[in-house]
């Protein structure tokens, strides 16, 4: 459901007033571009200026109602727009110049593509009459981004600009969301055309009609299948978060009495405090979630795609189960695992239609067995009075924020510990590059999320490796007073790679040590004007976290020195089946 806040409403009224005054007037392409963004309800854009987009920046100078966040690198800008989008469901917007501006944004676009994040990226381009001539700062942006975008547009006629902008937002946000690139040649931005807003026109794209409603016969069949089994499991993915289907999923699980495991991207779609929650499954999933999949006689996949990190060895994935697969994207169904019953549609709609057909299933014995597994094989690690365990960092944050904070992460061990130990209670609270696995994602994404949700606590849990990939954005966070919290789980290593080298490459730690050459993170953060603390003991950690929570203006960096060679368990080794997971150091 779209909730229109009072602030948005006044803004929309102001916009429509503004829009009316420009209607039919002859404007430059740059002016049309800025007007079109305002028409789409855009309030924040993340960008970096450059030669071919100067005319847009001149308009932004005159348009204070459109907030532009100047980032330090286009990758950070794209990730921040991505964080804004994941936190709200609204498309995030990034604006970059041609050539290196566009190529720097590529990692951010690919990240959004893999995780189905609605993003509209506007890239400057050399003038149309120079395209293909190897002009200064020219890159084939359409070509480079084509495999990592849902769609892309090259503007070749300034009169089409409002419609292209409108279509870009429509395509990015509907169906299975994804990034859309709009390439803006410089001459299009300085030529003139009468401005006719496209916002309220119906979007007519003949080849683009996402299926929203599930087939009623298939849904009826699904209900019959669910009622006929004894050991069903709901396997819920990022699609349930994207569809804002937490209420429907929770109601469905409770009505039918079926346990729920979520994927990494699905965290938050089902409250982990719920007795039916199994936590996360997959390579670093809980023992009981993975065993439930292996023992299940029916798997109900909801907005999930049977990724290789989830299934382990495919041939032995869920050997006893039939599979119902609900997804809005038909290509997801049957791609990795054959579905016995496919249902194409929006997860929220399908669950709403399925709910009235459900009665409680006979799962008493199954749930009892799972409870036994939960008691015998809980998530666990060995505590030590002398050293902070990384899991304790996440547990402390989870308790301090009651599971209600918005958590952004990078990629690696800390990401898995955050996924395992933070008790998520709300959807759209977990920002993680699950598909592409982009280091350096967490902190800029947290900035974008904090700008979108100023009233929520936003914490970036990062590793000492990943943080250094985009740490320059501290300048952005200080400049715009974006009070995100950055907790560095600092083990001095590229921890996940080190863990694999320890377990599978005979302890040969090849090029993974960061400790000797990393900056003093406290001095580093302070040099930007951020607040910073270091914690080497449990007491220092708790005290730093408490102080961190009281800072409401500036970004805070907490450098937590944790056990250097802690490993992340349970772990399904590459090529193993889910039930072959390892629970602790052998």
């Amino acid at each position: 459901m779209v909730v229109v806040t009072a602030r948005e409403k006044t803004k929309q009224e102001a916009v429509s007033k503004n829009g009316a005054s420009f209607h039919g007037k002859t404007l430059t392409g740059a002016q049309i571009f800025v007007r079109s963004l305002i028409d789409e309800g855009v309030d924040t854009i993340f960008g970096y200026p450059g030669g071919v987009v100067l005319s847009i920046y001149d308009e932004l100078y005159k348009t204070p109602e459109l907030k532009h966040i100047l980032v330090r690198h286009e990758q950070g800008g794209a990730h921040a727009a991505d964080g804004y989008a994941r936190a709200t469901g609204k498309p995030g917007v990034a604006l970059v110049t041609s050539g290196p501006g566009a190529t720097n944004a590529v990692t951010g676009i690919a990240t959004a593509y893999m995780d189905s994040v609605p993003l509209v990226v506007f890239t400057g381009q050399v003038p149309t009459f120079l395209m293909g001539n190897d002009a200064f700062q020219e890159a084939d942006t359409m070509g480079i981004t084509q495999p990592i975008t849902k769609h892309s547009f090259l503007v070749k006629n300034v009169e089409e600009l409002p419609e292209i902008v409108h279509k870009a937002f429509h395509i990015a946000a509907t169906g299975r969301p994804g990034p859309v690139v709009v390439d803006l040649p410089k001459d299009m931005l300085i030529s003139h055309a009468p401005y006719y807003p496209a916002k309220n026109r119906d979007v007519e794209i003949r080849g683009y009609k996402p299926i929203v409603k599930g087939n009623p016969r298939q849904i009826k069949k699904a209900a019959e299948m669910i009622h006929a089994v004894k050991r069903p499991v709901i396997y819920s993915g990022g699609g349930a978060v994207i569809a804002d289907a937490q209420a429907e999923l929770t109601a469905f699980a409770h009505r039918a009495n079926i346990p729920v495991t979520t994927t990494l991207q699905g965290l938050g779609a089902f409250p982990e405090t719920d007795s039916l929650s199994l936590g996360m499954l997959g390579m670093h999933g809980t023992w009981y979630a993975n065993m439930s999949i292996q023992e299940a006689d029916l798997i109900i996949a909801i907005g999930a795609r049977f990724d290789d990190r989830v299934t382990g060895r495919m041939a032995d994935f869920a050997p006893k189960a039939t599979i119902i697969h609900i997804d809005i994207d038909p290509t997801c169904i049957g791609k990795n695992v054959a579905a016995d019953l496919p249902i194409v549609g929006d997860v929220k709609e399908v669950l709403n239609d399925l709910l009235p057909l459900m009665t409680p299933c006979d799962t008493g014995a199954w749930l009892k067995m799972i409870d036994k597994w939960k008691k015998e094989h809980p998530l666990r690690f060995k505590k030590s009075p002398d050293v902070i365990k990384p899991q304790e960092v996440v547990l402390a944050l989870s308790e301090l924020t009651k599971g209600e904070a918005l958590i952004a992460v990078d990629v690696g061990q800390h990401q898995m510990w955050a996924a395992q130990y933070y008790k998520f209670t709300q959807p759209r609270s977990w920002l993680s590059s699950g598909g592409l696995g982009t280091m350096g994602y967490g902190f800029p994404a947290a900035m974008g999320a904090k700008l979108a949700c100023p009233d929520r606590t936003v914490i970036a849990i990062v590793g000492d490796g990943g943080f250094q990939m985009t740490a320059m954005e501290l300048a952005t966070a200080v400049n715009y007073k974006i009070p995100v919290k950055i907790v560095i789980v600092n083990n001095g290593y590229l921890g996940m790679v080190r863990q694999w080298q320890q377990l599978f490459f005979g302890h040969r730690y090849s090029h993974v040590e960061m400790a000797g050459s990393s900056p003093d993170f406290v001095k580093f953060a302070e040099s930007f004007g951020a607040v910073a603390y270091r914690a080497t003991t449990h007491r220092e950690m708790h005290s730093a976290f408490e102080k961190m929570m009281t800072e409401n203006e500036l970004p805070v960096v907490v450098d937590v020195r944790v056990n250097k060679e802690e490993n992340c368990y349970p772990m399904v080794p590459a090529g193993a089946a889910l039930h072959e997971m390892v629970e602790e150091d052998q």
Partner: protein
Amino acid sequence: MRHTINLLLENKMGSLSRIAGLFLSRGYNIDSISVGDAAEPGLSRMTIVTHGDDRIIEQITKQLNKVVDVLKVFDLTMEPFVHRELVLIKVQATAGKRSEIMQIVDVFRAKIIDISPQTVTIEATGTEDKVNAIINMLRPFGLKAVSRTGRVALKREFQGET
């Protein structure tokens, strides 16, 4: 198994490269691809011949359907359809060989569309088998160049009760 897939798509900037790119990035095979204006202005019709097992073909048709510029995707393989390929063959033909070549051209109901002191250029239309056959028959004379369109295809219309 070989499949013939027919697409109707908007003739937009980048739509052809998007489809070719899809086959490349997902590792699907293209045996032939042919594209031109469709009946409706602004639309193109494309015929793709590809091969793969059922799962791959299902993914190909679904992925093609997902491309925003694509309006319709038909896998013609399982229903009656007509298909042709056109080839231009430039073959060495000195005066002494011309009549022999013309006999072959007649048998295949092909046409000579260009002639020079050293060569003739032949236009032939038919199924891939026929095109392969005429190329093979002409090969001994010395092929200078061969240009094939790849398969173009349309669904066969319902013929009424039989």
